[in-house]
């Protein structure tokens, strides 16, 4: 085992330049959003893999956007079955591969079996299936594309969603400031299965080949391996599509998403930020935390910082960089807990213009009238709003949730709106 550990640790990814010479196994023309991290991650994983690859995909953004029949973006064998069963499915594929080789029905050659699943398919509904497959020891690499919510179904919370984030099932409202719970430590849970290789990684310029190096190491492991890959989603997190990499790097520099690996049980940091940045920098870059900027919700930001510090310190201890401290958990909300009503009520305030008038992104303003979207709480004037059954839904939510085309007045205002968040 020690030999195996040393061998794995010695593996390095080729340079990006060298990787770029490999054929691209995920073609362009798929329907993932512009700026989506998922296709970048998948292409890097496929570029780094040396053995021929067979992909198993759980139901998710990646799956639906890359295989709209009769087209496919995949140049490798690819199988999708359901949302929660990717790990069980790969168990069957891998067992078949062994059995067919033994009977001489397929050539004896190594195949890299790689699962791609979202955080929902991994942290939540697929956890049992994954745990079972890890315990049985099938040889496959499981890549969790962690965008911290159910994006394919329109941004609902998962147990990977951080405290305070707005999702459509944990909406930021006048009383409740987004999700009330911290995220689950899934990477730790996976490491507790004592599989040969577990790592957390992200698309970062610094270090540039963290992801590809970890893919190489994972595929070298003699048994199951797992990568939790941070996967910014501009639609769900509300940032400019061009900022995907910047957000990733911020998550790493704030130690919200540390880069580390667990090789045969030994925890190792693979990158230490020179200076740990305040988590607020990362929070402020994303519209999903916008409501936390309000004075009455600022304490949530502080709580997030506490969680991040605590997890970072415990990681430092686990990796032998610091003495272990008593691990005191910040208070957790009891199920059904409702925070005190935040004062003053906030629907349209954040978007108020200088004169104190609520202002719709189209420019219309109306002093004294509070127009608020039912879903996101943003201001939207009656002209731009979609009003099914007398409800007010802002143009953007109408587009995202109901597929209603937005009024032209908004199209030009849209960019302004996003950048204001």
């Amino acid at each position: 085992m020690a030999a195996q550990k040393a061998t794995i640790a010695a593996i390095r990814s080729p340079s990006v330049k060298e990787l770029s010479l490999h054929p691209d196994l995920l073609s362009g023309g798929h329907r993932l959003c512009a700026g989506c991290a998922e296709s970048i991650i998948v292409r890097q994983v496929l570029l780094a893999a040396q053995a021929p690859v067979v992909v198993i995909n759980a139901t998710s953004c990646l799956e639906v956007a890359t295989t709209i029949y009769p087209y496919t973006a995949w140049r490798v064998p690819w199988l999708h079955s359901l949302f929660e069963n990717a790990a069980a499915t790969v168990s069957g594929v891998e067992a078949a591969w062994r059995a067919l080789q033994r009977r001489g029905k397929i050539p004896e050659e190594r195949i890299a079996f790689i699962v791609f699943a979202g955080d929902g398919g991994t942290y939540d509904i697929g956890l049992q299936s994954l745990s079972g497959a890890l315990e049985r020891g099938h040889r496959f690499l499981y890549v969790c594309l962690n965008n911290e919510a159910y994006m394919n179904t329109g941004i609902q919370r998962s147990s990977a969603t951080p405290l305070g984030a707005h999702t459509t099932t944990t909406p930021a409202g006048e009383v409740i400031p987004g999700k009330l719970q911290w995220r689950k430590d899934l990477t730790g849970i996976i490491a507790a299965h004592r599989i040969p290789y577990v790592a957390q990684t992200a698309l970062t310029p610094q270090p540039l080949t963290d992801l590809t190096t970890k893919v190489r190491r994972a595929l070298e492991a003699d048994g199951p391996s797992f990568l939790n890959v941070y996967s910014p989603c501009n639609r769900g997190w509300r940032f400019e599509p061009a900022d995907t990499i910047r957000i990733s790097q911020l998550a790493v520099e704030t130690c919200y998403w540390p880069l580390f690996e667990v090789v045969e049980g030994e925890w190792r940091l693979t990158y230490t930020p020179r200076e740990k940045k305040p988590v607020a920098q990362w929070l402020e870059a994303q519209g999903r935390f916008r409501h936390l900027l309000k004075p009455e919700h600022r304490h949530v930001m502080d709580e997030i910082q506490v969680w991040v510090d605590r997890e970072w310190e415990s990681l430092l201890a686990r990796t032998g960089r610091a003495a272990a401290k008593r691990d005191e958990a910040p208070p957790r909300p009891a199920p059904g807990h409702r925070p005190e009503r935040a004062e003053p009520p906030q629907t349209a305030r954040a978007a108020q213009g200088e004169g104190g008038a609520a202002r719709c992104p189209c420019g219309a303003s109306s002093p004294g009238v509070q127009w608020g979207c039912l879903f996101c709480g943003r201001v939207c004037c009656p002209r731009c709003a979609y009003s099914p059954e007398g409800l007010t839904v802002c143009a953007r939510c109408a587009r995202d949730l109901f597929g209603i085309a937005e009024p032209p007045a908004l199209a030009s205002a849209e960019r302004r709106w996003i950048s204001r968040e």
Partner: protein
Amino acid sequence: MTRVVALTGNQAAAEAMRQIRPEVCAAYPITPSTQVMETFAQFVADGRVDTELIPVESEHSAMSACVGAAAAGARVMTATSSQGLALMHEVLYVASGLRLPVVMAVATRALSAPINIHGDHSDAMGSRDAGWIQLYAEDAQEVYDTLLQAVRIAEHPQVLLPVMVCFDGFTTSHTIERLVILEDAEARAFVGEYQPAHPLLDLKRPVTYGPLVLPDYYTEIKRQQREAMDHAPGVIREVGKAFGERFGRFYGLLEAFHLQDAEVALLLMGSAAGTVKGVVEGLRQEGIKAGVLRLRAFRPIPAREVAAALAPLKAVAVLDRADSVGSPGGPLFTDLRAALGELPVRPRMVDYVYGLGGRDLLPEDVRRVYSRLVRLAAGEGEDEAVCQYLTVREAPRPLSPVGGA
């Protein structure tokens, strides 16, 4: 060369699986089918078969692993019952939708709640629309014979659909019976080798399995599934005939017993046929023209054959070993009505729900049904409900407001 052995239905299933030598089996224990995988696991442990056994952590994962292995290009088998089949439900549709010829032994059992481990057909009926072929065996011999045939049926290029071989929990799964077992080589030669058309593991020809299909193509894909199922009756008959020619036991879509000149008959599936046949022998000696029609294939339902066999009769009773609460009768009854619906002259048709949660079906219960049929055949006024429970702690009363047959 054959061997005569004493085995339970479950052991017979395991024996067939050993001879079939699937490349992969993924399974999870549940009464009354547990013994299938236990026996098979021992075969693997003793080196008597080289199957990759995946002892998964749930039936959902069992069927998921079967789907993965079958897509990879392997021959795949499993077994389950009751809650296990219910937990697989979602994945059953993936197996049939991806046209994967998985073969599964189902020792049928009641569904919770209330929890009950004994036999009835509620579990299998719950998955009757999942796109699987469903064959029902009467006894251990048929479990064995049908599993061997099921592999050929499932893998037939015109079919390529998964098959469930259903047999009654405990009555068949746990009763030790005498049966004839083929030589391994004979069994293997009959089953043949599986040649998957588009295996996932063919690295030279990468395939995309399970894409997103929108309204522009979904209907055509479902239609192809129906066409495959339409081919199944011919293939089931052909394989049953080939089996008979080789080994002397012939199989078709249904089995008729004393039906030639019958005036009244029962339509049923599974082990109850044994009891009913015994009663019919007795009735025949009393001069009553009674017969039995036992369905072997429930999906696809051999509607034309059933209609042809029952058209000349005066009265028919269906024995349904599952209820379909809220419908005009049990699932077999509603299918029978549909099958006979086109006939210009139909026999009177009534339905009895029996044997729920393992309740015994006794010869006197069966006699009671036949005597009602005789009254109906004589054109005597109908005084009872069309659908009712046979043997229940209450006076018989209508199960539904639907009127007489």
